[in-house]
């Protein structure tokens, strides 16, 4: 069971959270202007990182808010968590 630091509530156990897939994938502002291939990429293509991965979590059974996390997928170590809308912290690995 992972221990996850919600940026709003602090450290809480994993069962309070829901995983939300890769972070920083913005829905195109004007979908009609996006090609079929680009739309398919938006829907389906993910980096599937081995190592540091920026991903979304939601504190479903807590404050209910989405936030982002940097997690090392090989060790399950959380490097940072940060609020939705904030830039991915740089220089962390």
């Amino acid at each position, binding site marked *: *069971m*992972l221990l996850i630091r919600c940026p709003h509530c602090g450290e809480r156990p994993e069962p309070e959270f829901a995983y*939300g897939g890769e972070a920083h994938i*913005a829905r195109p502002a004007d*979908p009609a202007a996006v090609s079929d291939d680009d*739309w398919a990429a938006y*829907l389906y293509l993910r980096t599937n990182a081995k190592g540091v991965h920026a991903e979304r979590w939601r504190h479903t059974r807590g404050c*209910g808010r989405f936030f982002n996390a940097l997690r090392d997928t090989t060790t*399950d170590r959380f490097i940072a968590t940060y609020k*939705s809308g904030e830039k991915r912290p740089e220089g962390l690995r």
Partner: protein
Amino acid sequence: MSVARLPTGGQVGRDRTLRFSFDGKSYEGLQGDTLASALLANGVHLVGRSFKYHRPRGIMTAGPEEPSALVTVRRDAARSTPNLRATQVELYDGLCAVSQNRWPSLRFDLGRLTELFSPLLPAGFYYKTFMWPRTAWHQLYEPLIRRMAGLGEAPLLPDPDRYAQQHAHCEVLVVGAGPAGLAAALAASRSGARVILCDERPRFGGSLLCDDRSRIDGLAATEWVTAAIAELAQNPRVRLLPRTTAFGYFPHNHLGLSERITDHLAEPPAGLARERLWQVRAQQVVLATGSIEQPLVFPGNDRPGVMLAGAALRYLKEQAVMPGRRVVIVTICDSAYRVAFEMQAAGARVAAIIDLRPDPSPAQPDGWQQRLRQAGIAVETAARVLRTRGRGHVSAVEIGRLDAAGLPTGQRSIDCDLLLVAGGFVPSVHLFSQSRGKLRYDEALQTYLPGDSAESERSAGACRGLLSGLAAALQDGAAAGAAAANASGCAGEEPRFEIIEDSTAATAGRLPRAEAAVSGPKAFVDFQHDVMLKDLDLAMREGFRSIEHIKRYTTTGMATDQGKTSNVNALHHAARGLGKPVPSVGLTTFRMPYTPITFASFAGQARGEIFDPVRRTPMHGWAVRQGAVFEDVGMWKRARFFPRSGEDMHAAVARECRAVREGCGVFDASTLGKIVVAGPGATAFMDRFYVNDWSKLAVGRCKYGVLLRDDGFVYDDGVVARLAEDRFHVTTTTGGAARVLAMMEDYRQTEWTDLDVWLTSTTEQWAVIAVQGPRARELLAPLVDGLDISAAALPHMAVVHGTLRGMPMMLFRVSFTGELGFEVNVPSDQGAAALDAICEAGKALGLTPYGTETMHVLRAEKGFIIIGQDTDGTVTPDDVGLTWAIGKAKPDFVGKRALARPAMHAPDRKQLVGLLTRDPRVVLEEGAQVVDVPGQAPPMKLIGHVTSSYASATLGRSIALAVVAGGRARIGQTLHVPMPGGEIPVEVCAPVFYDPKGARLNV
């Protein structure tokens, strides 16, 4: 006094004897005995039969690593625990144990005949032997093998005991209360840190409990243990957990501990939980899990009377039990010498020490040679045990040397009734490895040690390879405890201990592990799974090169002991056989649990009625009184149908359907998901989220909403009412309520932060009573306190606020039946009263309660889809005929862009259609496949499948919905549904079977 119990010594209570039985025979033991020590005290060595060959097996160890002495302990018919290690079962007065895997009795076991066929049962025999005929596996071979090879039997009655679960947090968790663990706990606790100390044994102290020669801080070792426990116990920030196994190390320093609370008690107090599962989240963990002595491999090494040297020492020192009188010790390391001295001093005759090392003495402490001479103990160097002899119990060993060609020379036989083996201690790295720490191979110890940690964790003492002596372990534990306290923010200081060590306790020296094994018949590596050296050899001859594959092929290390006494020997033998260094052969994975844990401890209180939360609607009691048959929909209990006396489901549903079509019916629709979308941005939010155009929806009106995912596939649906300009009452499917709200929150929080909108689940705020049928208005009109609910005032798809007999009410005019219909929403706590009022008024009109089954039939007659039944996540709005719902003028909504992809308009997409069987009495199976060409041989070309199928009382025939490739263009065609009994011809039709114009709705 029992035959093997010494008159003095040990740490057993001698003032009172405990009676116990084994296989029906009564014996006596003492407080402080394990079942194993008590059996040995009574001269009982034969305690079990092996898994595969039913060979007689005895007690080999004194701890959790025991592979052979597995027993069933019975309190009563419901409290019978199989596969317990006799070495860990604490004796209590009245304990009743029975042996396993034998028939008719332990002494005379017919299963022993399998050994006659053992040449036919090599490694992997079941992969080769029982392959033909194929059907025989399930019917013949597997049941036969299962009966012949096996462990104990689980009780058939429900477990009557209570199992507790508890979460705990601490700065420092110390696993293992031997010298290193106690020292770590002392150091950490003195810093003020919250400390949890657990140990699987009933008493703390570990190896100190069988050390009556060393002194710590001026105290005898056992006295020091008592003082240390006393100091820890009086510290309120320390929790001591004896009889508690740390079985699993999970990410982020989350450890599972299993505490056995009452299993050692003769009469467990009522109300006390039998076990407690601890989930500990520790800032820092100190692993002080010690080490496990390994056996040696030689022919006949499994005979009762063959025991680990360290185990014999424990039985001698802890329980004053002398497991044999004439002892031979075979060893590859120095630890056996201490055992020899102690056994001799206690009155046994040590006939010989057989030491594989050519010259063991240089590394040994001064004076050993003299002591050996004085004691008259002969040491045979460069020698080994070539085999054992004995009927049921070891009576002699044949020793000798191997020449350069590996052939035995200088054999001679030595009589003995106890053969002690000392294959060197191996650090217990199980938990460290579970924590994903990296193991490194240590050449000197010839085994794996903890390397880099992955968690906030440190290993201390024997489990990190400090196997030589008490001082090293104690001081290492103290250092680890202080460091752990410091790392958790407390000021830890490393205590120093004054230690006078037993000079015979050395265990150092390079171990000739790889050369130790002696081949030959019945040379066992894995005692619990009956894997022999020759099985490993066969696996290697057949081409297996990795220990992981050798393990799976031979099943070595795969028994319930997980190879605690076999993996190291198997690894070394494989490395030698393959001519590779040990580290390049690989290492099998250490998995949780360290020792078996009961299912009950994981289940805890979550069983029976509280296994899973149950959701009941406010009118549940009414449905019970009406005799409803319920079905589970998610966590909800929903009334499925209301049978009257003598009715089956078919008859009840037919009656309920007719009542709704001809008069009126009442239905509990409270489970529908309800979400209020409110705020200045509500309309924009709805426009972006649902396919529909909401801007033109007038306040007080409703619309059928369709929700897609951004991949364009239908995700949910439901009626949405506009309660105000900035307020929508959204309904969802029963099962979709939570995920729709989660999806809404996702878009609100992360994509459309420009919108000022609030989302609130109101599912449980409202009780929803659907009143449906041509007489619904007539029924409701007198109840709604003067509210005008005429067709003009409240047309189809309208909503109005009012009161029902004084109760606040939102009244929806909606229909999922195709009839004139209303959904009465009242606050949950008034649902039962409102329903009672409606039913009272309905008596005169023949108001009939109906359930979900009737609801399904009625909606299918109208072609209304059920999300998840008629759709499956690959269905577009067009596929199910919902294109009309889409707001065409909107620039964007979730799923719009994906709908523009060409594949979403392919003419051969599966489309929702109706199917009418040629024989109206035949009701198709839901999920049945549809083909267009009859008489095909498999594999047939499948063009769709049946999604909904019912007998329609209204239409007097069966009806079905299906998704069929290019279905709408096939209307009028005959297709076929192949079933085991033959193909069923069906005619394709439009998916609306009843009142296609909707005339009955708009009245």
